[in-house]
């Protein structure tokens, strides 16, 4: 038991995490592509036309995965940032830093695809509704985290300031999630609930889950690519980095 815990801590050092991440990246890319192709096939060729929204509902296959990922990445980012703050582990803070741009990308995609869905269905590109507003705040939290880290020269201090911002911002996640219940909003309720059967056709559900898996694998792959760059940037004065590139 003790041995295995020590094994895990070994990967908390940039030196052993750098090559490990490099070995994992191709597998996550492969998984992202496989799930993506299967998900797109179902999205366009298997899932039936919606009775109310016609073909326009197909936006769900990218909108929901992007929205889920934006919230999930935020939680993971705050977790790593918090861990870095508590234990002072270097890789955790770098991981949080690597996730932020991907989280911002997912929040942007959630807002863009949502707006493209809102226009034909609600008649407006944007409304100041609880769900939309809280998702916009999430995008600003990602951007704020990145800007704050970029504004502080000393990386360890930047990590601490960023971690506090990330942890305070976590309060926004349940607000986004429950906004459709707490407030009377234009946004439709969730299609998948833990305590009742999903309110959609089985094939639509499968398409959405496969696309969510593809987005998930994509996010891991791209965050690992970025964390490798961050490790090299921040550890450049260490001996192992000098030898790693030989």
């Amino acid at each position, binding site marked *: 038991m003790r041995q295995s815990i020590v094994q895990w801590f070994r990967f908390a050092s940039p030196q052993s995490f750098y090559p490990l991440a490099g070995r994992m990246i191709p597998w996550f890319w492969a998984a992202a592509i496989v799930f993506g192709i299967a998900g797109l096939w179902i999205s366009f060729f298997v899932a039936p036309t919606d009775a109310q929204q016609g073909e*326009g509902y197909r936006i769900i296959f990218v909108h929901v995965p992007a929205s889920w990922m934006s919230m999930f990445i935020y939680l993971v980012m705050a977790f790593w940032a918090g861990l870095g703050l508590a234990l002072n582990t270097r890789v955790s803070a770098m991981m949080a830093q690597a996730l932020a741009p991907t989280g911002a990308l997912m929040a942007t*995609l959630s807002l*863009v695809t949502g707006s*493209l*869905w809102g*226009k034909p269905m609600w008649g407006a590109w944007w409304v100041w509704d609880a769900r939309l507003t809280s998702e916009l705040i999430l995008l600003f939290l990602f951007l704020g985290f990145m800007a704050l880290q970029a504004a502080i020269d000393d990386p360890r201090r930047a990590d601490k300031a960023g971690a506090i911002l990330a942890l305070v911002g976590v309060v926004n996640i349940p607000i986004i999630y429950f906004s459709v219940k707490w407030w009377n909003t234009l946004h439709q309720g969730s299609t998948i609930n833990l305590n009742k059967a999903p309110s959609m056709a089985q094939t639509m559900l499968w398409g959405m889950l496969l696309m969510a898996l593809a987005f998930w694998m994509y996010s891991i792959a791209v965050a690992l*690519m*970025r964390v490798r760059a961050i490790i*090299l940037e921040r550890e450049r004065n260490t001996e192992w980095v000098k030898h790693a590139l030989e």
Partner: protein
Amino acid sequence: MHWNSVGEFFAMGGYALYVWGSFGACALLMIVEPFLARRRLTQARTILARERLADELDLQQKNS
């Protein structure tokens, strides 16, 4: 398969702009981001290689 023709598929029942706009935006950003991440890694490696070369040159000068 419920599309009768390729044209019908691209028309998306009149929602072409919205559906293709959404999938297009995702495709675009998800192609650009890995490219940028890759470039950042390459740049970090280039800088490191340059620094190492500079160190070596320093060392040679000192020794000569």
